[in-house]
C-alpha cells in the first residue's frame, strides 16, 4: 500500500507520547495488530511521510523496474526492485541525494518502511519508521532517529528535503473572519508571507511587512473599555467564538489579555492564549490588531496578535512549539475554517472614495461605551434593622405559628404595640437568587430555635440574565429598516415596547464605524430590587446599553387588614413603563391608487396595542418569557426584476460598469462625435431607461 502523499512539511515530534529524544535507544512502540496503523493517534502523521508496503511493491514490480512514487517540483522518490532487494532513491534536480536498500527478503517481514521529517528538541531530523511483523503475529511500530543511527544519512535526507519551509509549515496570513449568522465580519491584519518568520519568538516587524492593517482588526478600543475580569466575546468564525478577558498583571502598568477560543456550544476553551500588554494610557501601546496565519496544506494555524507601539510595530506572538501542541494548532485551523465565505455584498453605509457632499470629513470617531449597570451599594441590608427571608411553604407555616405563639407576643408587646408592626411585608417574586445563606428565623430580638435553615437575602439588588435574541436581515434591502420593518419587545412585568428598527439592524460599532453586515444581538437583563419588586429591564445591542424600561414584578400577600387595604387600592402597583410608544391605535387606511410599493402598503397599515400595563400585580399572570416580535413586509416573487426595473444604485461610473436595465439620473454623453440632437436623444433615452 504505497502512498504518494504530497510533501507539505514536517510534523513536530510530540514529547508526551513516550518518545524520548536523546535517549540511548529510541523507544519501540508496540501496538495491537487490530489497530489501523494509519490512525494511530499517538502519532498523527499525515504528511511528510513516505511509507512503502514492501510486500505489495515487490510483487508489483518487475526485476530492475524503477517506479517514481512521489514527486514534488524537482524532488522525487523512486522505488527500484532489484534481485531479492528493494531500493529507495531520494532524488533532487536529477541527483540522488539519499538511497537505501532492503535485502534478504526483508519485505516479507518488514511490512512497511518509510521516512518522515520532524523536530527533535528543535532540530529538524529525518525519522525512519518501520512496521515489523515478527513471529506470532506481533507487530512492532518503531520510530528511529536517522541522525542517531547514521548522521550522514540524516544529512542527505535533509538536503533532499531542502530549506524552503518555515518551521516546517507554509504559513500565510488569514484574510478575514466571518460568522455569528452573518453579523460579524472582520478583515484581519495580514502579515506578508515572507515576513511571518519563525513562530518561536517575538518578531519585530515594520509597516512594509504587512499586506493589510484594516481598522476592523483593531481591538484596542475593546480592550481599553473592558472591565477587569469581564469575559467578552469579540470575534466569531462561523458559530465558533473568541473571547477576551483582561486581568491586572502583578507588574505595574501591565495587563494580561486572555484570548480564549471556543467551539460551538462549548464552555471550555480548547485554546487559551495569554498576551501581556502595556496598560492602556500608561505606555507606548498604540494599537492591538487581530491576526492569524495558517498552513492550509497541513491544516494547522497559529494566532498572531499584533502589538503596535509608538517606536514601530512589534508582534506579540510566538508559538512555543514545546508548550503549544500541534493539536491546538490543528483545532485552531478548524476554528478559522468555520468562517463563512462569500461576498458580504453592498452595505447600507458603504463610504466610497468620492466626495459625499458637505464640509465634514465623515471620519468615524469612537463612541462612549455603556457596558453595564452599577447597582446601589447602600441598601441597609447589613444594618440589622430588617431582614429579608425567603421561606419555603412549610417554613412560612412554621413562621405563622411562631408569630402567634404566646411567648413571642408577650415579648413583642414590651417593645411594640402590634405584632404586625414587626412584619414589614410578605410578597412573592418570580426570582430567587442562588446560593443564599441560611439561619434561624428571627423577628425583632426573638429567635426561633425550631425554624432553622431559612434562607435570607444579603444583597438587595440583583441582576437577572434574561437571555438574548439574534436579529438578522430578511431582505437585505431598505425593507429591513424603518418604517417597513418593525420590532417590538415584550418585557414581563412591564409590557410591550417598541424598538428602533434602524438601530437593531445596523448598530454603530463602538469605534464609530458602521458595519457592513446587518443584524445584531439583543441581550436582555433585569435589575431587580428584591425588597420592592421594582425592576429595570436593560436591553443591550452589541453589548451596549440602549434601552431601559422600569416596571414591577411580584404580588403582595396581605397579613393584616391594613396591608390588604393597601393592596386593594393598588398601592403596590409602582410606576411602570409606558404602555408603548404608540400613542393611539389607528384605523386601517383603504387602498387608494398607485402601485403596491412598500411605501404605499406600509402607509395603509394601522398600529395596534399588544398589551396593556403589565407592571405590578398583573406581572405574575402573564407570559414569563420575554419575546421579540418582528413584523416585516412580504414581497411577491418577481423573477428577473433587474431586466424590467433594475435596482437602486445611485452610484457613478461608466455605463459599461453597469448592466441590464439601467436608468440614469444624469449623464455626460461626450467623447464621441454626433449631432446635438442625437446627443439630446441619447440623454433622454438613458434617463427613461435602456437595456445595456
Amino acid at each position, binding site marked *: 500500500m504505497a502512498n504518494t502523499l504530497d510533501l507539505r512539511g514536517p510534523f513536530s515530534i510530540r514529547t508526551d507520547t513516550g518518545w524520548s529524544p536523546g535517549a540511548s535507544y529510541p523507544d519501540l512502540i508496540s501496538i495491537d495488530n487490530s489497530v489501523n496503523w494509519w490512525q494511530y493517534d499517538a502519532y498523527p502523521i499525515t504528511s511528510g511521510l513516505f511509507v512503502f508496503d514492501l510486500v505489495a511493491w515487490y510483487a508489483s514490480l518487475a526485476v530492475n523496474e524503477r517506479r517514481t512514487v512521489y514527486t514534488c517540483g524537482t524532488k522525487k522518490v523512486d522505488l527500484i526492485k532489484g534481485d531479492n532487494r528493494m531500493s529507495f532513491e531520494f532524488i533532487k534536480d536529477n541527483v540522488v541525494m539519499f538511497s537505501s536498500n532492503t535485502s534478504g527478503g526483508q519485505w516479507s517481514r518488514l511490512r512497511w518502511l518509510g521516512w518522515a521529517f520532524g523536530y527533535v528538541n528543535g532540530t529538524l531530523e529525518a525519522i525512519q519508521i518501520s512496521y515489523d511483523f515478527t513471529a506470532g503475529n506481533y507487530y512492532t511500530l518503531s520510530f528511529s532517529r536517522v541522525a542517531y543511527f547514521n548522521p550522514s544519512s540524516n544529512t542527505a535526507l535533509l538536503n533532499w528535503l531542502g530549506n524552503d519551509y518555515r518551521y516546517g509549515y507554509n504559513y500565510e496570513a488569514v484574510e478575514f473572519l466571518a460568522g455569528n449568522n452573518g453579523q460579524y465580519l472582520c478583515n484581519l491584519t495580514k502579515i506578508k508571507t515572507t515576513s511571518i518568520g519563525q513562530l518561536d519568538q517575538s518578531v519585530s516587524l515594520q509597516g512594509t511587512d504587512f499586506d493589510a492593517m484594516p481598522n476592523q482588526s483593531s481591538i484596542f478600543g475593546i480592550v481599553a473599555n473592558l472591565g477587569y475580569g469581564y469575559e467578552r466575546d469579540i470575534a466569531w468564525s462561523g458559530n465558533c467564538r473568541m473571547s477576551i478577558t483582561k486581568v491586572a498583571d502583578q507588574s505595574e502598568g501591565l495587563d494580561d489579555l486572555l484570548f480564549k477560543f471556543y467551539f460551538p456550544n462549548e464552555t471550555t476553551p480548547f485554546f487559551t492564549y495569554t498576551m501581556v500588554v502595556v496598560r492602556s494610557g500608561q505606555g507606548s501601546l498604540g494599537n492591538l490588531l487581530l491576526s492569524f496565519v495558517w498552513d492550509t496544506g497541513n491544516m494547522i494555524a497559529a494566532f498572531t496578535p499584533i502589538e503596535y507601539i509608538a517606536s514601530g510595530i512589534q508582534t506579540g506572538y510566538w508559538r512555543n512549539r514545546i508548550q503549544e501542541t500541534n493539536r491546538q494548532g490543528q483545532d485552531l485551523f478548524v476554528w478559522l475554517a468555520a468562517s463563512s465565505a462569500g461576498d458580504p455584498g453592498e452595505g447600507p453605509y458603504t463610504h466610497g472614495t468620492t466626495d459625499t457632499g458637505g464640509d465634514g470629513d465623515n471620519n468615524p470617531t469612537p463612541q462612549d461605551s455603556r457596558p453595564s449597570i452599577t447597582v446601589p451599594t447602600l441598601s441597609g441590608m447589613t444594618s440589622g434593622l430588617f431582614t429579608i427571608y425567603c421561606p419555603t411553604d412549610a417554613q412560612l407555616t412554621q413562621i405563622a405559628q411562631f408569630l402567634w405563639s404566646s411567648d413571642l407576643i408577650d415579648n413583642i408587646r414590651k417593645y411594640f404595640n402590634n405584632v404586625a408592626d414587626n412584619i414589614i411585608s410578605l410578597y412573592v417574586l418570580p426570582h430567587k437568587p442562588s446560593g443564599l445563606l441560611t439561619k434561624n428565623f428571627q423577628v425583632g430580638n426573638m429567635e426561633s430555635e425550631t425554624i432553622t435553615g431559612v434562607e435570607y437575602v444579603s444583597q438587595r439588588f440583583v441582576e437577572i440574565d434574561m437571555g438574548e435574541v439574534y436579529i438578522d436581515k430578511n431582505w437585505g434591502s431598505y425593507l429591513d429598516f424603518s418604517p417597513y420593518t418593525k420590532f417590538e419587545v415584550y418585557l414581563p412585568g412591564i409590557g410591550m415596547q417598541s424598538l428602533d428598527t434602524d438601530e437593531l439592524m445596523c448598530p454603530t460599532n463602538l469605534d464609530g464605524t458602521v458595519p457592513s453586515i446587518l443584524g445584531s444581538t439583543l441581550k436582555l437583563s433585569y435589575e431587580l430590587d428584591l425588597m420592592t419588586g421594582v425592576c429595570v429591564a436593560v436591553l443591550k445591542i452589541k453589548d451596549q446599553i440602549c434601552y431601559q424600561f422600569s416596571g414591577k414584578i411580584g404580588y403582595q400577600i396581605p397579613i393584616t387588614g391594613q396591608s390588604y387595604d393597601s393592596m386593594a387600592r393598588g398601592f403596590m402597583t409602582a410606576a411602570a413603563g409606558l404602555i408603548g410608544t404608540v400613542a393611539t391605535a389607528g384605523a386601517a387606511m383603504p387602498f387608494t391608487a398607485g402601485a403596491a410599493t412598500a411605501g404605499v402598503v406600509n402607509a395603509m397599515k394601522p398600529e395596534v396595542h399588544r398589551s396593556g400595563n403589565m407592571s405590578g400585580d398583573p406581572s405574575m399572570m402573564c407570559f414569563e418569557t420575554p419575546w421579540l416580535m418582528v413584523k416585516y413586509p412580504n414581497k411577491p416573487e418577481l423573477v428577473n426584476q433587474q431586466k424590467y426595473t433594475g*435596482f437602486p444604485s445611485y452610484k457613478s461610473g461608466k455605463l459599461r460598469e*453597469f448592466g441590464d436595465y439601467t436608468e440614469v439620473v444624469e449623464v455626460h454623453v461626450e467623447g464621441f462625435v454626433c449631432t446635438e440632437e442625437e446627443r439630446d436623444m441619447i440623454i433622454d433615452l438613458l434617463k427613461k431607461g435602456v437595456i445595456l
Partner: protein
Amino acid sequence: MAVDIVLRRCTSERNRLVKSFIDADDISLEGVFVEPNQDILRPSVRIRTDVNLSGYNYAEIIQFGRKYFMHPTVEVNGIWRLDCEVDVLSTYYNGIMESEALVKRTGDNKINYYVNDDVFYTEQRSVIKYYNFKRNNIDATFGTPSYYMVVAGG
C-alpha cells in the same frame, strides 16, 4: 445621391443598445433619396427592388455611418420608400458605454439595495414572527419563585 443600405430584421426593442437580428436575412441594396434636403437623422430612401421589403424594419446607411429604425412603404412599380429614424443607441454604442453617469437604477453591478426609491413591491400580507429570548438555548425566565418576608430586626 445614391446610398448603400443594408436592410435587417430587428427583433429587439428600441431601448436596447445591442440589437438582435435575424442575420441570415440581411440584404444590401442601393437606393436614392426621395426628396432633396434630407435630414440625416430621418432620411427617406427610395429603392427599386423585386424583393418584398415588408418584413424589414431596420436599416444601416453606409454613407451616413448610422443605423436606423426603418418603416417601409410600397409605392408603385416595384418602388419602395424606406422612412428611417436614427437609432442613436446602436449607432453610438461604444461612446455611450464610455460615458460617465450617475445611475439611478441598474440590473447588474453597483447595486445598493438600501437606497429607498420604492423599487420593491410588497404584498398586503405581512410576516410577523416571535422570537423568545433564550438563555443557553432555553426560553429565559426569572427562575424559581419565592416568598419574601421582610421582618424588623432579624
